[in-house]
């Protein structure tokens, strides 16, 4: 198969009842892209027949690849594996439980081609339990919006369309898939939200519960800190180190005063030295972080796709009107 235009990544965990239906729906929804898309099913260590069924479908359909994990790693690693192995310049991720509707994909892809880096689904009519799913999710979205300054209404929706060159650079672990849009837009990416359909679960059980929220928030805070840290590690740590330094300086003058009056100075002087020590420690860590980032394979400027890459972007993705004139260049060359 030549280079596909679209890669659909679907993580599957114990979805034996949904796999076949899922596959059929994707194929029928992507009729306009016929022959120009690939599907990646990622079997995330399912304990049921998911992998066997998926491989069975793959045997008849060469555009379906099935990635089989050694064990259950979770949704983010499953998506990461799909993204790492995708071959198309546009990547779509979605849930494997039929709650997302593949018929939304063509509209979202069209939106992306208007010049966005990522298009996020917004389940405006969400079919889930109110107390355990919808309310916590609404709170989490509010907080994520506040922390990142990017008010995305539905970070948790798995149905997203990305530019591959941006996503392939993005570090992707723990529970990070939920604030990818927020992170990307922090870096200057253009994010669009599109209303998508959402269905109640038909088969199987929901695998995610309330306990995720605190993990998501913790990860978010951490990622935000790390992101602001690694662009200027030394400066970041120096800013933190200023606080103990100010206290140490104040104590220094108070100790000087004590000496002139003959008062005991041991306690204040000790604390002053400790705070000075902390200042040096933090600044040194800044240099260590500088070194870590400098030696790492990560290039921040590639995570933040910024407008500078727009030209390259247009070359990567054929604009939607090019679909109507099915590629005649190969015929000429042949």
């Amino acid at each position: 198969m030549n280079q596909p235009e679209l890669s659909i990544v679907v993580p599957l965990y114990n979805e034996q009842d949904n796999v076949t239906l899922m596959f059929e729906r994707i194929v029928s929804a992507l009729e306009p892209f016929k022959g120009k898309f690939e599907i990646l099913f990622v079997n995330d260590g399912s304990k049921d027949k998911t992998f066997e069924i998926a491989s069975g479908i793959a045997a008849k359909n060469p555009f379906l690849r099935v990635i089989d994990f050694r064990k259950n790693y979770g949704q983010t690693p499953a998506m990461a594996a799909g993204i790492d192995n995708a071959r198309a310049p546009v990547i779509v991720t979605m849930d494997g439980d039929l709650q997302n509707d593949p018929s939304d994909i063509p509209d979202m892809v069209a939106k992306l081609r208007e010049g966005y880096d990522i298009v996020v689904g917004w389940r405006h009519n969400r079919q889930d339990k109110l107390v355990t799913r919808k309310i916590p999710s609404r709170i989490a979205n509010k907080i994520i919006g506040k922390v990142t300054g990017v008010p995305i209404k539905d970070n948790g929706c798995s149905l997203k369309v990305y530019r591959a060159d941006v996503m392939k650079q993005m570090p992707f672990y723990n529970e990070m898939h939920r604030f990818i849009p927020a992170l990307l837009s922090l870096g200057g990416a253009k994010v669009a939200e599109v209303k998508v359909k959402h269905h109640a679960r038909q088969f199987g059980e929901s695998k995610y519960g309330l306990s995720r929220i605190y993990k998501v928030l913790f990860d978010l805070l951490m990622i935000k800190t790390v992101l602001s840290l690694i662009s200027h590690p030394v400066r970041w740590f120096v800013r933190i180190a200023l606080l103990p330094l100010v206290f140490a300086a104040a104590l220094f003058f108070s100790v000087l005063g004590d000496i002139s009056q003959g008062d005991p100075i041991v306690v204040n002087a000790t604390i002053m030295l400790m705070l000075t020590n902390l200042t040096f420690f933090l600044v040194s860590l800044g240099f260590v972080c500088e070194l870590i980032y400098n030696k790492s394979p990560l290039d921040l400027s590639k995570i933040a796709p910024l407008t500078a890459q727009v030209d390259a972007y247009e070359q990567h993705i054929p604009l939607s009107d090019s679909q109507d004139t099915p590629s005649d260049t190969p015929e000429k060359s042949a």
Partner: protein
Amino acid sequence: MTAIEITAIVPITERVEHVDQLILSYHHALAKLNKPYEFLFLVSPQWNNYKPSLEAIIAQGVPGKIVSFSRSFGEATAIQVGGEMAHGDIILTLTPYEQIAPESIPQLIENLQGETQMVIVNRSPRIDASFNQLQSRWFHGILNMFADPKFNDMGCGIRAFRKEILKEIRLYGDLHRFIPLLAHQQGFKVKEIDIPQSPRDAHRRVYGAKTYLGRIFDLLTIIFLTKFNQKPLRFFGAGGAICLGISLLGLLYIGMERLFFDVAAADRPLLVVFSLLLVLGVQLGAIGLVGETIIFTHAKNSRPYTIRKIVND
């Protein structure tokens, strides 16, 4: 000659007892499996005097190679290097001293089939000195408070596993003891089988303080690597938060006394203690952040998953 299926790695690094007899018994035991095999003897320089007897064994028809190192190394390195040189798909690590009867080695290979990709030995019943057993029980007791799944005998150097495991885990230092845990973390299925301990393994062993201290740090390392692999801030942050909490409460108390009860603060040693805890808390938190930075910046290289196979790739 048919392709080699089993590679037996014998790291000669720490303790060596009756090595020539033992290797011959291993040889006879493996011959019964009817699968082509080879031995790799990895000899650390301090045991170079065993080389002539190993050469003699090879001359007697034991299929094997001697690999010498110019610098002394640990068992973990030996297994990693041996794995790179191995021709067989099945790796068998054997000890140059007798832990279980060589005749029972084929049991490991027989159990290595289907889903099971690694077979390890639990020496049971144990017949060595109760002091040894006590050491072992404490070690595994602490380990199993944190580890999942729970194995009973990390100290047995006899294991059989598929070579692909070595591609997914990194072995260095003293991590060889924890190969089963590391393999399980990467999604491989590990099976522990009971095999009686050999009478030759039964004598009492007492190690120096350095060894015991080393084991404690090995334990901490493996707990850190398996539990907090992707989230160093949670490991350091917990300690940091405790320190910060105590110190802030203490400083608040001293501050109140100073403000409202007119107790002088400047000559109180307690103030130094709480300040020290504050500094420690900040330091731990900052180190945690450095850890997160390492994970974040290297995430693209250390993929957070392992793939068994890709259909249609």
